């Protein structure tokens, strides 16, 4: 017997008694459901970002005293002004280098079949997810006085004394480029992969030389991708702390270092606030200019690429004028490039492959150096190592301080990932599933922890949590990490939800599933791979995090990055290599595991129909 009939058979006109299922009733109401889903994210963003930031703004002019002299000091002091300019300069150089180096690789990736693609992506993903600290450490090993490069140059007889490579601008640019190239490749690739190569084929069949087809058809279509990757890298780069602090010399100081020094060493809080606000304003300014050219959300989530129905942006008009002016020059360039490259261009794109292999080598070699160094017999960081031994691994096995840090970081990462995944997933449901005004703005706002330089978030939370008296507690630290990782969860989950077949939930509902049953039996199981990815990203974000931890740690066990940071600054020895190797292995294993689970799930549930 079916339920409906049994009830209908009962008595005429008597509505069935509704079950006293509070949760189901609540989740049935649109407004209540909206509020429940929206509140965690809203509370997090307002409570732990907006309010702390306003503290800083308030503090930077000493509140009601309206004392703006600290801003004057930022600009009046030649040192400070120089640091600001150098920050922008370094950021710009690093951005241009990363984009230029990454573009051909991203281009090649768009042409690959799935097998080759996943092989290459592993080589890019591993560096991408390796902690900044470890990668920077690797460059210290490579560029050091007895590092790979100096030893190689000396043994080749090219130089007689080791070159000063470390603590130079060159080292900073190399180290940061190494950090940002994988980011550039993936950001550009995810939008470029949507561009059909048939456009270029069409151009060629219509008579364009390969160079023309590329320059006039394909390349202009990739410009939004290039631009958004550039913005992402630039605003991250100008807030960068670890690499310039370890690889640069005194003249390479960047603004984040200045702020950290003022806040922790000089205890010059107001100047620190003012410098933070200046950095924040620069970032906002850049984002504003960028928003004239591309939709901002494209920078962080490639899913919402520029839609065609939007009115042509300033960029389009600008480009048309620019193109017309450049026409003669372009023609000359095209024909020159064509004559030069046509003998080199082969169908197999061998040159592109060779280039890509070189880039991959640049990306992975430092990690390999670290792994080899961990087996060194020397007590010093010398490369190549004079002999092999397990001494550093044995030492690591006995180092209880490292063990404590390791387990503390795992705990912290797990807690942060759990909270961030729950808050971010609910937020993504809210942002994707409900209709309301300013949805785009709110989506952007929910990503703002990625836009605000980390050092500012760290300072703001420090002041704020001190007020709340949760500074130095585990909870306070977790909240800091949740704030930083929630945007990644939102980006991943929003993409997954946008691809979610809208008929599945009604199908569950009409066949008798209550809202919570639908969530448990249909929605969440289908979102499982996305949830895993989001959780892993959140965990890795927390596991790598240095600045916020430094500010919020208090007297707790140092996290792994803080432990690493402390050691790297005072005694750089191969023990760090052993620790790094271990971390890289663990991270790689977790990435591969999640990837395998995803593949299995996708293979089973992909919407394609078997013939």
């Amino acid at each position, binding site marked *: 017997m079916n339920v*409906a009939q049994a009830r209908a058979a009962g008595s005429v006109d008597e509505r069935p008694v509704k079950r006293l299922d509070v949760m189901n009733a609540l989740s049935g109401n649109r407004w209540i459901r909206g509020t429940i889903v929206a509140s965690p994210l809203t509370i997090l963003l307002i409570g732990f970002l907006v309010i702390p930031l306003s503290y800083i703004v308030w503090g930077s002019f000493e509140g009601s005293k309206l004392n703006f002299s600290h801003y004057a000091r930022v600009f009046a002091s030649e040192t400070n002004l120089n640091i600001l300019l150098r920050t922008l300069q370094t950021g710009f150089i690093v951005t241009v280098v990363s984009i230029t180096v990454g573009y051909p690789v991203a281009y090649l990736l768009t042409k690959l079949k799935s097998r080759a693609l996943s092989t290459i992506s592993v080589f890019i993903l591993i560096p991408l997810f390796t902690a900044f600290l470890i990668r920077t450490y690797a460059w210290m090993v490579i560029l050091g006085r007895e590092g790979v490069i100096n030893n190689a140059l000396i043994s080749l007889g090219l130089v007689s004394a080791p070159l000063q490579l470390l603590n130079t601008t060159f080292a900073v640019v190399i180290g940061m480029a190494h950090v940002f190239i994988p980011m550039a490749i993936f950001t550009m690739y995810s939008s470029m992969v949507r561009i059909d190569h048939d456009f270029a084929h069409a151009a060629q069949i219509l008579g364009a030389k390969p160079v023309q087809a590329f320059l006039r058809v394909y390349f202009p279509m990739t410009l939004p991708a290039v631009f958004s990757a550039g913005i992402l890298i630039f605003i991250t780069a100008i807030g960068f702390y670890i690499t310039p602090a370890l690889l640069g010399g005194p003249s390479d100081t960047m603004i984040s270092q200045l702020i950290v020094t003022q806040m922790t060493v000089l205890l010059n809080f107001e100047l620190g606030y003012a410098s933070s606000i200046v950095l924040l304003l620069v970032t906002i300014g850049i984002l504003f200019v960028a928003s004239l050219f591309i939709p901002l959300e494209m920078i962080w989530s490639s899913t919402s690429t520029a839609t065609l129905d939007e009115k042509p942006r300033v960029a389009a008009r600008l480009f048309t004028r620019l193109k017309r002016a450049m026409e003669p020059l372009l023609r000359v360039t095209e024909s020159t490039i064509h004559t030069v490259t046509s003998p080199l261009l082969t169908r197999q794109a061998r040159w592109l492959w060779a280039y890509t292999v070189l880039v991959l080598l640049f990306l992975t070699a430092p990690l390999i150096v670290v792994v080899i160094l961990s087996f060194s017999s020397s007590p010093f960081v010398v490369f190549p190592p004079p002999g092999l031994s397990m001494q550093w691994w044995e030492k690591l096995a006995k180092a209880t301080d490292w063990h404590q840090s390791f387990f503390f970081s795992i705990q912290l990462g797990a807690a942060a990932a759990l909270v961030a995944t729950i808050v971010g997933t609910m937020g993504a449901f809210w942002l994707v599933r409900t209709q309301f005004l300013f949805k785009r703005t709110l989506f952007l706002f929910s990503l703002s922890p990625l836009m605000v330089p980390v050092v500012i978030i760290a300072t703001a939370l420090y002041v704020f949590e001190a007020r709340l008296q949760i500074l130095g507690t585990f909870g306070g630290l977790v909240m800091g990490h949740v704030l930083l990782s929630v945007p990644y969860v939102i980006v991943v989950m929003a993409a997954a939800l946008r691809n979610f077949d809208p008929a599945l939930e009604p199908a569950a509902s009409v066949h008798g599933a209550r809202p919570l049953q639908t969530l448990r039996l249909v929605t969440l199981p289908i979102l499982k791979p996305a949830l895993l990815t989001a959780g892993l990203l959140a965990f890795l974000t927390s596991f790598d995090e240095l600045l916020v931890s430094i500010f919020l740690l208090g007297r707790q066990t140092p996290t792994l990055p803080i432990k690493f940071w402390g050691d790297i600054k005072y005694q750089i020895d191969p023990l760090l290599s052993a620790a790094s190797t271990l971390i890289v292995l663990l991270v790689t294993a977790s990435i591969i595991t999640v990837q395998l689970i995803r593949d299995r799930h996708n293979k089973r549930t992909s919407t*394609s129909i078997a013939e």
Partner: protein
Amino acid sequence: MSTSLEMKNIQKFYGPLHVVKDFDLLIQPGEFVTFLGPSGSGKTTALKMIAGFETPTSGDIFLGSRSIVDLPAYERGIGMVFQNYALFPHMTVAENVAFPLTVRKAPRQETAEKVGRALQLVKMDQYSGRYPNQLSGGQQQRIALARAIVFNPSILLMDEPLGALDRNLREHMKIEIMRIQKELNMTVVFVTHDQDEALTMSDRIAVINEGRLVQVDDSKSLYGKPKNRFVASFVGESNMIPCRVDHAQNGVGKLTVAGIAPGAAQLSGQTDGAKAWLFVRPEHVDIDLRAPAADAPNALHGVVENALFLGEMTRYLVRCGDETITVKRQNRGQAHFAGGTPVTVSWKSEDCTVLN
């Protein structure tokens, strides 16, 4: 196992947009009713209101004798086949079919039995361990059907279920769905924009246009006696020729057709002097070489503009003054008229109707 469904004066507004207007419809137990209409006509909205995904702005819906408008979808006990099947990709075929029973917490034994029976009914019993993406479109369709009927729903809704299938499979599934419906004696509401599906499968067809029920009738009356121009042109092919009613008597009228020729046709309520349209199906029009002095009623002189040979029949377009008349003639070895041939087209007065 079937229930009647009644929609009483249903209205649906989306803001100022009136998408469903004055819906009054009683579907008998065991009846197969099709909502037929162009896209955007409101037929899917009407179906969603029955399923419980949309709430009517006003009006009431009864399943049997019970009002269901205030029930959420999951308490209505309705089976539904979705346009793209909406099979749960992470569940096997058996799990998908068992879903309505699982969420109702049916005993395992009973579930297994019912799932087995439902899969047998759609002839998919050997596929129960597969995942939906390992099945072809037609197979997915069968599973969706099995899932919708496994819990003996009081009524089955189908939202353009054949739209995604290729032509042969569609023909086959039409017959399968009819067989299963007869076997279970289910009440079915079927939504489509495809008139062939509607004409073949339904006991009654509800033609919907701009949110309104235009005509509810069985296939034959709908095709033979459309109530207005919309139905006439949406269901099947038709000729619409402007005409004037000169003299009306007992539902039959003497007319002037296309402003020149005399004619006679059945009226649908027109009076003397009314300007209206003469409706006649192309297969009811005869075509012949122009007879010099034929001044019989319902005959127009024209020239063949275009003759399309379609195998079992030929389709002529004949230009008669300002009008183009479509003629379909079975090919039984008669003479063929090439383009440019002067011809006369004519039809019997009982085969044509005057529509407003």
